[in-house]
């Protein structure tokens, strides 16, 4: 090492805070829920924002925060699918392990502005993870009265792919919301709806002009869901969606997440549909 290295503690935007994994819950074969504690206190995120998760020695990955900002606990939750090298390494970690956290970053589902409105949530697969932050926020006891009708559509490939099974069971039974779920492919025990998520649209009953629609799912899903939204005449300005990109820096420099001229980590990941609909690279 040469003697010109300047050591500083926190002057750089690239330095993560060391955080502790408080608990780990296996949600499905591929997804785990990690409860994370920061020494500095609450993360202070908004629904839909993401953090850069550092597995020391392995690398960093952008992960959406899954818990609502108004949760009672000081901790926050990340629902992570095991798919790349960082998420695979994260899945190896247990309670008490240290990871690094930068953020929260990016735009968010503006639930404050949606007060008084109805909301339609459309979640496909792991897309439920970022939406859960907004869903659990508006369904919290102190917030529920501030919102009108809440409709949730949730589609997964097979019944064993449902995330947060206990919470989903509660949602299925809640009387103050309309909750519809579906699987692409049923198993012997599945009694519910079978079909892709768009097949749930005939079931919904919403006031399209007063409803904000929030979409998150795999890239293939968006266009078909948008077609349904158009066919029931949901105004384009009332649709927001969260997009996945490979954020390497999270601070609008590295270029990896760029969608045409937009840095997804800065001007996304949550976009108004009307803003990105003419961008070829959006989806």
């Amino acid at each position, binding site marked *: 090492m040469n003697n010109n290295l300047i050591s500083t503690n926190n002057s750089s935007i*690239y330095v993560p805070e060391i955080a502790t994994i408080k608990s780990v819950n296996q949600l499905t074969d591929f997804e785990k829920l990690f409860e994370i504690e920061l020494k500095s206190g609450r993360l202070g995120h908004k629904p839909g924002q993401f953090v850069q998760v550092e597995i020391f020695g392995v690398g960093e990955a952008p992960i959406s925060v899954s818990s609502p900002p108004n949760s009672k606990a000081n901790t926050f939750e990340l629902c992570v699918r095991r798919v790349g090298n960082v998420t695979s390494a994260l899945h190896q970690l247990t309670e008490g392990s240290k990871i690094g956290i930068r953020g929260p970053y990016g735009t968010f589902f503006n639930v404050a502005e949606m007060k008084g409105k109805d909301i339609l949530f459309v979640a496909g697969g792991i897309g439920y993870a970022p939406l859960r932050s907004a869903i659990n926020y508006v369904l919290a006891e102190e917030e529920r009265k501030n919102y009108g009708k809440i409709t949730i559509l949730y589609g997964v490939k097979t019944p064993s792919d449902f995330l947060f099974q206990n919470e989903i069971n509660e949602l299925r039974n809640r009387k103050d919301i309309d909750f519809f779920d579906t699987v692409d492919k049923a198993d012997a025990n599945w009694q519910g709806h079978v079909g892709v998520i768009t097949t749930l649209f005939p079931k919904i009953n919403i006031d399209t002009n007063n409803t904000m629609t929030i979409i998150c799912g795999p890239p293939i899903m968006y266009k078909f869901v948008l077609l349904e939204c158009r066919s029931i005449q949901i105004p384009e300005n009332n649709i927001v969606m969260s997009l996945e990109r490979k954020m390497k820096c999270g601070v609008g420099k590295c270029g990896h997440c760029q969608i045409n*001229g937009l840095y997804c980590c800065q001007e996304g990941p949550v976009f108004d549909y009307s803003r990105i609909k003419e961008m070829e690279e959006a989806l």
Partner: protein
Amino acid sequence: MSFKYLPKEKAQDFLSELLKTGIEINAPHKKGEKFYTFEKVTDPSEVVFDYVRTILPPKKYFLPQTESLVEYDLPVTKVESKIDSKPRILFGVHPCDLKGIFLLNKAFSDKNLDSNFVERSKQTIIIGIDCVPDDNCFCTSVGTVIPKNEYFDIFLTDIGNGYLINIATEKGEELIKGISFIRNATDGEIQLRDEFVDRKNNMCKNKMDVPLSELPLIFSGVYNSHVWEENGEKCVACGRCNLVCPTCYCFDVIDKMNLKLNEGQRIRQWDSCHLEDFTKVATGEVFREKKSSRDRHRFYRKFYYLSKYSPSFCVGCGRCGLECLADIEIVETVNRLSKEYNGTSSKV
């Protein structure tokens, strides 16, 4: 701030004086038969004052090919930022590269200031030098013929028997102060510089058919042009254009452990938007799958997406066209686009 004069026979002595400050100097050196590179100066006689372009632009002194951003112990108890920076004199930078450094500074000191880049920038004294364009240069088309004073500390122009020295900053004044063979310039010598600039304005044969001010309009309408398909068919997606570009600054970030497994680093390294994996997410989706869309992306970063910093993020150095294995060249591409543009093409 002021104009001075340096006699040509004292040019090497000037560098020797600068070396006496103890500050590392980096300047153009000859490499092989026909190439030039920025290297550390140990012998002033090896420094080349008249060259056309170096293989790599001097961006490597602000954004090294690879650098450590963060270092930590394993298992982790401490995480620290790392900035490998020291005082430096960058000598012999051409107007295009000066603009390149200026633009990178803007991008890295904008919102979310990048302290690694900015710290190096603060510690660097930049001495530019004027040049004579070759057949690949197109500074006249992108407004980089003569640098603004904010791009440098000191700027030299060859005016025959000596160099006119334009000193733009106090750092520059400080550096020149006390060098006995540098004297105040006369009005006639400043006049000679102006005459050179006038000539240089007409020197580039490689020219865009449209003025710089019209490029945003053209690029707003050629997103779906067949020109991108044509370029994409030729492009081999090697990424050379990105590496030699004075203003390509996209990077990758990776972690590395030492062999003892007790320390790790987060490392930043140059990356290329022409490589297929550049936009790949963990689940395998690639958001710019075609070479044509990646080629287009680079052009749009130069002439459209980053216009908040400058009307052109391309500085006209000619490196990418010269290095391209498929003969894709900026001016030729822009001219084909402008020909096609008639106000009816698709929007971005």
